[in-house]
């Protein structure tokens, strides 16, 4: 009813979670659903149907999902009481026959109206078989003209360009591209979305958002945690596939893309693809100089001694998997030609932080002696994506006093302080987007392909040339080689 809905609200829908007994379901999906329920954004006709090999009953599933959220509101137990569970192997036809029966039953008893969001929280090798089985069992298309069936896919989207294409081909045999919601939870973060607001809703930033004023851009995705229980996956992926190919490329695209004509999915995705297409790929002989790969050794993080990567459980003692990547890229277009984009990510760095920093050029002439400007750095605009979400502008100001001294000061905008509204978690935002059918913050297949186009030559060069693997003690900001990468052009990594 017009005038009543100030927020988007999910339509009736059944969320089918493949990999329902896994970590992602408990750690991310359930807490996000609980928040949506607490905000009254889930409809009465809503349920979750969990599918996994683990031999649970409906009650097991309900109890476990209810318990995943600490201090949940009273409505959460009510929501979970309608959950259903299907135990079975994805290669077993009967699993999908039973799933079909459960979903039909949910339509009748809960009112999910034939709408489905299939969430593939499984290992990537299961994506294709699950999609095929959904098609074969009549669960890939909506039951009626007003209904919908969507599929949310977790990264990785392939291991390289060829496997990404192969995965797309498999999925497209069953689903249209419009039905596919490739999730990169970074896009669901408020501050990533705020990049759009900052750039395209303000007159003061966009005019300086280009090569004329920007000297360099640094994007950092730092984690303080190690490989944890993901060793089996991480050994195959490494930081390049785990973070660079998706999160870093998406943040880069949002930061550097041209303004879209409209704030709608197609326009934004078109501009992101254009930007990624403009990123210069590195020739094999350039990779060693432009991309640093490294692995953490034993060290101290947050006051605790932590093992080196090769000492982690499940990791090969001779592993050459990179846990750190620093690289320099150039975007060959009118806006960014010649501006280095420094990207870095790593595990076991001193703290968890994600930020984008635009470092501006120095003034053409500084009319002050060097003694007066000893504390003056280049102007910088920093977008803090996590934690402590906000924006900082750094500029020079006169130090109060009789002498004329200038030093850099920070002008700070903090989300927590500026808004009363609670910031939704990324998964909360993206789940609701999938329910209401807004693909803006999901990744289109051509974005995936362009990201692989940038990353694949690097991976190939590493494989062909046994690229050096630097070491860094856990708890430091990476190897010396990464410092040298930026110092060559007179820059320094920030200490975020």
């Amino acid at each position, binding site marked *: 009813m017009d005038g009543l809905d100030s927020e988007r609200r999910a339509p009736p829908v059944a969320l089918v979670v493949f990999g329902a007994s896994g970590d992602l379901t408990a750690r991310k999906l359930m807490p996000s659903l609980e928040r949506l329920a607490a905000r009254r954004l889930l409809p009465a006709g809503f349920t979750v149907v969990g599918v996994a090999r683990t031999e649970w009953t409906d009650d097991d599933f309900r109890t476990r999902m209810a318990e995943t959220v600490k201090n949940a509101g009273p409505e959460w137990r009510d929501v979970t009481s309608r959950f259903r569970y299907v135990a079975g192997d994805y290669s077993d036809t009967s699993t999908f026959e039973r799933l079909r029966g459960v979903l039909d039953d949910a339509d009748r008893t809960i009112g999910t109206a034939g709408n489905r969001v299939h969430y593939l929280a499984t290992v990537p090798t299961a994506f294709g078989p699950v999609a095929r089985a959904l098609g074969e069992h009549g669960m890939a298309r909506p039951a009626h003209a007003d209904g919908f069936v969507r599929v949310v896919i977790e990264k990785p989207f392939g291991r390289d360009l060829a496997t990404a294409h192969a995965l797309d081909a498999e999925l497209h045999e069953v689903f249209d591209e419009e039905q596919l919601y490739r999730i990169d939870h970074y896009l669901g973060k408020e501050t990533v979305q705020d990049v759009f607001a900052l750039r395209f809703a303000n007159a003061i930033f966009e005019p300086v958002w280009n090569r004329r004023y920007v000297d360099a851009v640094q994007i950092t995705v730092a984690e303080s945690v190690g490989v944890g229980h993901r060793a089996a996956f991480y050994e195959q992926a490494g930081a390049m596939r785990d973070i660079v190919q998706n999160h870093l490329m998406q943040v880069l695209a949002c930061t550097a893309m041209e303004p879209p004509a409209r704030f709608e999915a197609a326009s934004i995705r078109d501009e992101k693809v254009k930007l990624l297409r403009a990123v210069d790929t590195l020739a094999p002989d350039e990779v060693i100089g432009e991309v640093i790969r490294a692995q953490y050794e034993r060290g101290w993080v947050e006051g605790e001694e932590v093992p080196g990567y090769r000492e982690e459980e499940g990791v090969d003692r001779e592993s050459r998997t990179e846990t750190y990547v620093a690289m320099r890229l150039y975007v060959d277009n009118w806006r960014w030609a010649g501006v280095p984009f420094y990207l870095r990510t790593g595990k076991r760095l001193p703290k968890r932080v994600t930020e984008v920093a635009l470092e501006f050029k120095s003034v053409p002439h500084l009319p002050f002696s060097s003694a007066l400007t000893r504390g003056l750095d280049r102007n910088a605009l920093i977008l803090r994506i996590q934690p402590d979400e906000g924006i900082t502008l750094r500029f020079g100001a006169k130090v109060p*006093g009789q002498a004329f001294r200038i030093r850099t000061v920070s002008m700070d905008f903090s989300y927590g302080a500026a808004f009363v509204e609670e910031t939704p978690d990324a998964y909360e935002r993206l789940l609701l987007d999938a329910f209401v059918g807004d693909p803006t913050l999901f990744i289109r297949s051509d974005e995936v392909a362009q990201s692989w186009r940038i990353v694949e030559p690097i991976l190939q060069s590493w494989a062909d040339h046994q690229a050096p693997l630097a070491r860094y003690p856990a708890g430091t900001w990476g190897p010396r080689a990464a410092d040298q990468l930026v110092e060559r052009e007179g820059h320094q990594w920030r200490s975020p």
Partner: protein
Amino acid sequence: MAEPLTLSVWSEDGVRVADVVAALEDLRRPEPMPATRTSVLTLVVVATRAASADRALAALHELGGRHPARVLTILSDPDAAPSDAGIDASVRLLGGEADGKEVWFEDVELCVRDDAARHLDSLIEPFTIADLPVVVWFVDGLPADDDPLLAAADVVLVDARDFGDADCFGSLARVTRRRPVVDLSWQRLQPWRELLAGLFEGPDARPFLGDVRSVRVAGRTGPRHLLAGWVADRLRLPSPEVHLVAGEHVSMRVVAVAPDGRAGTFEVLRRDDERVVRARADLEGGPTSEVVVPLPDATPAWGLATALSRLYRDPVYEHALRAAVALADRR
């Protein structure tokens, strides 16, 4: 600013850093409106004695709104029993008013034992506020040359007076090679330095700078060495001409001769019962000038406020320090 109000407190023993960081974030989310943090720096107080840490914290609270900071106080005990696992932590959100504006800032106190106390740098990073300087204040002793804490600091804060012996200058000089050092003792000596320099201003006194015959500096260990080092360096004096004398208050006496052979005495001193510094120049056959200036506020907070306004490398101090090392080695 009045003593800040404690708005919220969290404290727990045997926790991990992640717990403390989470508590810090939670404290800043009170209903109905989140508190706005006002910080101009991250100040890390490193102590091995609880009393020193308390003293430093008291001074910082007194400083209050002038330099609102996230204050991380680390009380470290590397020799504690390994069985005392984890960190004892408390977090406070403080608020108040300065110049009519609301300011909010945070105190984090960590008690760290065993091996973790030898890797304090790994504790600091999660608490630093991006883009604000990290000042590490060593209140109970100077860091070793290879102390990893130095890498985490943008500026090192010390008080040479606290260390009580002249041997500290060598260590301090080595620290300056790695990080800018702000010395509270040096800040307190500013009136003496300004007054002595001022005595040589003008055409009558300036010719005496060319031939300084002797310098006598009295005071406590630390301040007198720094001041003597400064004079020796600025006037390029060979160290035998600089005499150091123990005393309660700092005083300086410079004897110089003008090119025409006239003698001049330049003196800056504080008498026992006075809260002023006196500067006097007696020039043979010429004018006698005298200046009296009140001593600045002697509270630790004043010294801190001044020091924290100058968070950059001070080459004059560094040269004075190196000269002080030479003077101390002369013993």
